[in-house]
């Protein structure tokens, strides 16, 4: 067996483990927090209150208008300058959550706006408040519309978490980097890292179509 193939096999499980113990929890936690944030930002953006919608608009603009790497560095390397020292993991979760919050907010806002106005009125006419109508009638329909774009956001996030290696979080790419530095087999290890990311994303994409099928059951085709 060639030494390259052997290195590939020996490093495969450590890299996958880096994904399972680093990339995946980082992605899941950031996505969950980011979605909650995004829902709040989307509702603020849609609100008639000018101050609220202004703040939401500003936040989305900053997140979308600056590189994720810069956001990450501001939080991890920048904040200590004003006395706020955050460990690598929480820094990464904060940065990625804020990032998802900005992007997913626009997705959710568009999904809410895509539900016909008549659905709001039907909620009102059966006596619901606007909060109940939003929760029971509008959001379930908006959720279906937003699954494909939010899946994209999630898959992007999984790959973007590789940036966390730059603030010393041990995840998939950092494991590959360490083995590459040790073995000097950069091409092999980075291709292997790419392969593992790809496998992860294949699983996620099939998860997406399962969710879409489930949510599609009550919609005409």
């Amino acid at each position: 067996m060639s030494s390259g193939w052997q290195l590939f096999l020996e490093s495969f499980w450590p890299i996958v483990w880096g994904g399972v113990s680093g990339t995946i929890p980082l992605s899941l936690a950031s996505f969950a927090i980011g979605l909650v944030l995004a829902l709040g930002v989307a509702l603020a953006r849609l609100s008639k209150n000018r101050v609220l919608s202004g703040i939401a608009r500003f936040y989305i603009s900053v997140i979308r208008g600056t590189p994720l790497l810069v956001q990450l560095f501001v939080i991890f390397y920048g904040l200590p300058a004003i006395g706020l020292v955050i460990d690598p993991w929480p820094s990464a979760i904060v940065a990625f959550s804020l990032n998802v919050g900005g992007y997913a907010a626009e997705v959710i806002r568009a999904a809410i706006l895509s539900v016909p106005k008549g659905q709001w009125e039907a909620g009102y006419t059966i006596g619901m408040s606007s909060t109940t109508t939003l929760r029971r009638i509008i959001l379930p329909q908006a959720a279906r519309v937003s699954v494909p774009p939010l899946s994209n956001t999630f898959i992007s996030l999984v790959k973007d978490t590789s940036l966390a290696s730059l603030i010393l979080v041990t995840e998939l790419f950092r494991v590959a980097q360490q083995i590459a530095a040790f073995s000097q087999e950069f091409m092999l290890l980075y291709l292997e890292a790419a392969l593992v990311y790809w496998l992860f994303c294949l699983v996620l994409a099939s998860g997406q179509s399962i969710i879409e099928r489930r949510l599609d059951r009550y919609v005409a085709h």
Partner: protein
Amino acid sequence: MSRTDPGDSSKRADAAGADPLAPSAVPDDSVLLTARGIRKSFGENEVLRSIDLEVRRGEVVVLIGPSGSGKTTVLRSLNGLETPDEGVLSFAGGPELDFSKPVAKAARIAMRNRSAMVFQQHNLFPHMTVLENVIEGPVRVQRVPRAKAIAAASALLDRVGLAEKRDAYPFQLSGGQQQRVGIVRALALKPDLLLFDEPTSALDPELVGEVLQVIKELADEGWTMVVVTHELSFARQAADEVLFMDDGVVVERGAPGTIFTKPTEDRTRRFLDRILRPLD
């Protein structure tokens, strides 16, 4: 102003009588709804210019008129989907809402709950089954026990011939069936007043009859209703009073026999001619 009528809400909740289609109100002919001087503008466009309306219990009032005449806006104002700029609305036993002053939200909601709307585009909830659509209001809003709401909903669905569709989703139904579910959803709330906003306008012609039939039956059962429609034959058969609206005013009102056979206003005559003899 914000006082709700406890007697009324308990009546709505308890009135699951023997006949599921029978209205909750005690049959008498007292005045149920009074509207005076209702005005509404959308921007520069004055849609309603002082509308007066009185609906007695058990009465069927039909609004006809060209599109853009304000019929739908009248209906939506009664259900609180539009807020008039001016005018007074009151339901029997409830407070008088004067829209020339700011009206408390609680008072608007209390007024909205006296009526229920059937929409032109049915607006059923696509993510809920037929049964879930019907019990959503009673269970979530009126706090009727679920089992009781299901029993009442099943009886109503049975009466409109949709018993076997209770677990279907709206997209699996024909347009006429969807609209009948829309009607049942409104009935399940046991409102004092049913509002129909062009309930058959979005339907294929062959499906219009089954929906009008249900509405006609409800009228015969004694439900109070205000109907916006272009179906003049329905108006002729079911209406107690027909209001002809044009350009934000009620041009003429009266019994269907009078309005349709000898209208006094020129505008009414021209409108009826256009509808009854479109090719002349």
